[in-house]
């Protein structure tokens, strides 16, 4: 690809990377540390635990696999939404972003069923160290998905008002996409860690 022309026409000395992109990548770096700590704790507590249930026995793996498909699909649709926004196709953008939000919502609904079935069987976070980690990590991930839904809905609402032609709009769609892909990457690691290995 061509060398990066300074995307930012600003009178100030800068790195050629727009402020928003620097900020979102730094924020993702801190999120990497946050989830990295949860994974370290998971590995440490698992190796130190006397016994660790197999994912297949205690958790509903097919449902989780479906959930993974949903999240990957939503990653694809949000990157399409960014492509459509760049191509100035508002209808395409709204469709794709709507799909992303819908699939994220479906992901949470599936999560709700999973949690309620666990509670029904009397498995609470306090039941054992496995459930503690399961509920904490998936819960924190779920909160990040809620954040993503709010961000994407905000963008759609802003696009309908005067945001569509704002010079920052396409950038902000890209940053929402980066955040969403990161949440997907966290699930890509969380899914095998809790359910499969």
């Amino acid at each position, binding site marked *: 690809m061509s060398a990066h022309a300074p995307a930012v026409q600003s009178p100030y000395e800068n*790195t050629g990377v727009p402020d928003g992109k620097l*900020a979102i990548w730094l924020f993702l770096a801190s999120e990497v540390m946050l989830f990295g700590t949860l994974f370290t704790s998971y590995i440490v507590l698992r190796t130190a635990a006397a016994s660790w249930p197999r994912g297949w026995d205690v958790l509903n793996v097919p449902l989780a696999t479906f959930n993974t498909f949903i999240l990957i699909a939503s990653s694809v649709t949000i990157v399409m939404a960014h492509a459509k926004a760049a191509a100035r196709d508002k209808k395409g953008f709204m469709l794709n972003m709507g799909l992303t939000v819908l699939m994220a919502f479906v992901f949470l609904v599936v999560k709700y069923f999973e949690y309620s079935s666990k509670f029904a069987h009397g498995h609470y976070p*306090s039941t054992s160290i496995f459930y503690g980690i399961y509920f904490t990590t998936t819960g924190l991930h779920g909160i990040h998905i809620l954040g993503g839904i709010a961000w994407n809905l905000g963008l759609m609402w802003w696009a309908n008002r005067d945001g569509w032609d704002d010079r920052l709009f396409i950038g902000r769609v890209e940053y929402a996409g980066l955040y969403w892909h990161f949440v997907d990457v966290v699930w890509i690691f969380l899914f095998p860690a809790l359910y499969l290995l």
Partner: protein
Amino acid sequence: MSEHAHGHEEHSFWRTYVFSVDHKVIGLQYLITSLLFLLFGFTLVLLMRWQLAFPGQPLPLLGRLLSPEAAPGGVIGPMFYNQLGAMHGTIMVFLGIVPLAVGAFGNYVMPLQIGAPDMAFPRMNMMSYWVYLPGGLLMLLSFLLPGGAAQSGWTSYPPLSVINPGQTMWLVSMVFLITSSLLGSLNFIVTILNMRAPGMTLGRMPVFVWAQFVTAFLLLLAFPPLEAASILQLMDRVFHTSFYMPAGLVIGGQTTPWTGGGQSLLWQHLFWFLAHPEVYVLVLPPMGIVAEIIAVNTRKPLFGYKELVGSMAFIGVMSFVVWAHHMFLSGMSTTLSNFFLVTTMIISVPSVAVLTCLILSLKGASIRFTTPMLFALAFLPLFGIGGLTGLPLGLTVTDIYLHDTYYVIGHFHYVVVTGSLIALFAGTYHWFPKWFGRKLDDRLGKIHFWGTTVAMNGIFLPMFIIGMQGQSRRLYDPTAHLHNLVGQPMHVVSTVSAFVLLIFQLPFIYNFFNSIFNGEKVDSNPWKATTLEWQCPSPPPHGNFASVPRVHRGPYEYSDPAHKDDWLPQDAEKAVAPV
């Protein structure tokens, strides 16, 4: 939310002074709030010092005011003492020094020094203050809760912190503070990278800006692990998960609701993974402040700009691999201690290098002993003592004896109090003219300086002696142990010096608030300094510089023979030959 131009529409009182997006107003908000938190944290320690020097004797004045269960009959109870200890540590570190060094000085001075009109994200900057303030107030609120405030030390080691009352509110407000610091560090890094005045390459940035840049990275990468660890501890406390609770706990004779399987050492690893970079966050900006003040008052370029910045960056990197020297005796694997012994000794080298560069900047200079320079000069030997006393603590063998004794308390107070806090006082005297257009009174300043330095040494030097005698830290009543009796007079010396220190803060407080309105008026560059913040009016208007400044040279061009006066501002076109 489109970006409106930097027009000067008239904002209401609320938008200008309270919910302002101007980095200068936010800097002052941080300044006032953190100074008040520092004062409050200091009063907590006065109560503790009274109990340490005269165990069991009722407080003279305040005794009746304290609640009966906290201080029965005016005598501070052990539970309230532990609350004071934990909250003193937390308030001073997370609510006092870091917001002062990063929030106040960083927010106000750094954008001016790089010639920027404001921070890269003004609204996020405002948000970081308005997330910090509720976090701080929640921390203070925890005193009034039924169980009382947090009482398992500012390090809150489980299982004690999970079974003790008061820790939940501490964890919740910690999440607020961490979020505020993350927002702040994001803003700093993007501003420093993308909003430097044209001509200001990274090699021409002042040392203070470099210190803030490294500090922002430490905050960004080290704080989230503590946030995750706090979430785990919150789950342990509220939902009885047992991340940090090992199996078979018997507390007060009964088995506990925790099913076990957790590891208490996990918290210590995650906490110190943050807390060591955190103590370098406490020390790096003050080092930057001292470097600026020494350059201005010696009228000479700093010695070894590259070495100074290189050492700070190296400290920043190394601070991620030294954390477990706090855990040599905590049950961590002893072979791992050897690894951390080596990394701790490696990180002591850049600290010595920074001190060497600052001291050698005095050679061949023309030193002016203004009040900020007095504080900056006092920083050098006192921070030196702090650094040197770190040697026996960093060495695994001598740490066996000195770990968790008063020697440790003496060490880190010499680094933070006579190090960072004295440097932050220096910064306040140095940049006060830029903030308010008026100077702090020099006579009161000198009284404050001599009184503070002498009193601080009076508090912390005896701690080394008590530590050598083997007195453990965080003891409610040291006289309960025979081997501590010999150190009791030392406690009295410390307590008296602590009250003297309080008395010597009064001239500073009076001087600070009085000079805002009727201090001696000064022009925009009273110290005749070369860095950009002194080339704009004080206090700088919204948008700081009338036109975007263009930088032509390094930050410390003093005593240049080719120029008429002994300082050449960074944005001056070219040197004017002396007439």
